[in-house]
């Protein structure tokens, strides 16, 4: 489980998160929505302790990571998989080296064993073995995103998955593939997932509960029915362009 308690974070003088609190139980998926620059991606960076909050506490499975030592952080990070915005694949390494990166760096497994695991993982994320020797630049955006998911999964067998804008910039078919993959991971592997996105239509496909961030503050934390009834003008304003998407979810719920 993941818990934020009154977390404040700023870049220099610019406040990014203000007294942010939320709780995500183990095995649950939660979408964090909000406009660009509202502090969504910062939340993921804080969970990985790539940045440290100025105030507040962040608990991963009950452990306060803000006070964790480097050795403890390494252990915590082993339980977390992260799919970065745009994938963040190592562009000088092949697809195979990217997916098997963690094993190549940290395990004593022999190369053929790693290669077998990489092929297996490529199959799991719906990619062909043929791309194993290609460089990330030679892949489409959707394929890169799936390689990034495969890399995160093979690296640490994570209990928590963090996705930073996983469907941004993808065509509808690729978006569906990624959404299906995220759902499969949450259900089959029972991982706790946090999906940061401003693609509202996709958000309703991957989780039942949502957090809406506005200017670093949490202005909503609940499910779709609560979201429909929310009267906060900031939420209404944010969701105005997506009335159709919300209506479709209503219909689906009703059916």
């Amino acid at each position, binding site marked *: 489980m993941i818990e934020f308690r009154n977390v404040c974070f700023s870049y220099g003088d610019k406040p990014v998160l203000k007294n942010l609190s939320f709780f995500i139980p183990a095995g649950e998926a939660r979408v964090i929505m909000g406009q660009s620059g509202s502090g969504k991606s910062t939340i993921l*960076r804080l969970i*990985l302790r*790539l940045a440290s909050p100025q105030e507040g506490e962040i608990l991963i499975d009950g452990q306060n990571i803000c006070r964790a030592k480097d050795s403890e952080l*390494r252990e915590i*990070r*082993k339980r*977390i998989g*992260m799919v*970065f*915005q*745009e994938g*963040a*694949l*190592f*562009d000088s390494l092949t697809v195979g080296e990217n997916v098997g*990166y*963690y094993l190549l*760096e*940290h395990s004593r497994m022999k190369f053929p064993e790693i290669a077998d695991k990489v092929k297996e993982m490529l199959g799991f994320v719906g990619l062909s073995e043929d791309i194993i020797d290609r460089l990330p630049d030679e892949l489409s955006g959707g394929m890169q995103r799936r390689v990034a998911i495969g890399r995160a999964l093979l*690296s*640490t067998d994570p209990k928590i998955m963090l996705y930073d804008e996983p469907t941004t910039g993808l065509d509808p078919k690729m978006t569906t593939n990624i959404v299906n993959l995220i759902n499969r991971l949450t259900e089959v592997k029972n991982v706790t997932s946090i999906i940061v996105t401003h693609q509202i239509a996709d958000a309703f496909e991957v989780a039942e509960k949502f957090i809406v961030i506005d200017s670093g503050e949490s202005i909503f934390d609940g499910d779709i029915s609560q979201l429909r009834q929310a009267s906060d003008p900031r939420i209404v304003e944010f969701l105005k362009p997506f009335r159709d998407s919300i209506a479709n979810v209503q219909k689906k719920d009703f059916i």
Partner: protein
Amino acid sequence: MKLIKILMDWLRHFASESQQLFFFSAKMIASLFGKPIYVSETFEQMYLIGVGSLFLIVLTGISAGQGMALQFSNELADFGSKNYLGRIMAIAIIRELGPVLTGVMVAARVAAGITAEIGAMKSSDQLDAMVAFGIDPIRKLAAPRLISLIIMVPVLTIICDVIAIVGGWLIAIFISHITSLTYWTAVKDRLNFGNIFIGLVKPFVYAFVIGFISCYKGFSAEGGTKGVGRATTESVMIASITILIANFVVTKVVFSLIRGYL
């Protein structure tokens, strides 16, 4: 008032950058010790820095050596001292020109490459991805580059020295009409411990300067491709200027330490 404010802002920025560079350099030094050691990355960097810079260094050495020999031989001829050309070439090149030219050339070529590569990795979140996978990016990226520079900059300096002195010899025999024996005897006369020591301490210092500044600028690059471009320019500029300043400081310090051996 406005001028004072600009000056104060610049001083504050300079102090802050210097402090951050100092702490980053300390982390780089610490990353040289302990495990894991990235051996293959280090050899790859040694190849890229050493072999990759060889042509540039040979070209620099031969041009500088011949240019200097021409200038010196003309001046020495006025005093009837052309036979001393080898001595002057050895001192000027081994003590000063070889190390400085090599340092500045490596700074221009390698520092730009290091900063651009690490900066691009940072702007595409690859450094964060490394941390997320439990890998220390300083140990993985900066340490192999620093070790490679520490080994290859002195090697390149020796090559530059030799090529420059050979360039001087070509001018000595074909233009100044000094015999080979006279030239090489004069060169050999100045190849003493003091000159060789000062000529090898300098590239060692420059390797640290280039490594610290180029890696720091790469790791601290911000603002996407524009920011990486700016960091790369600053990296080359700061490394080159620091090498020139360090040249004076090292010369002064080493002179006071080994004056008797020069």
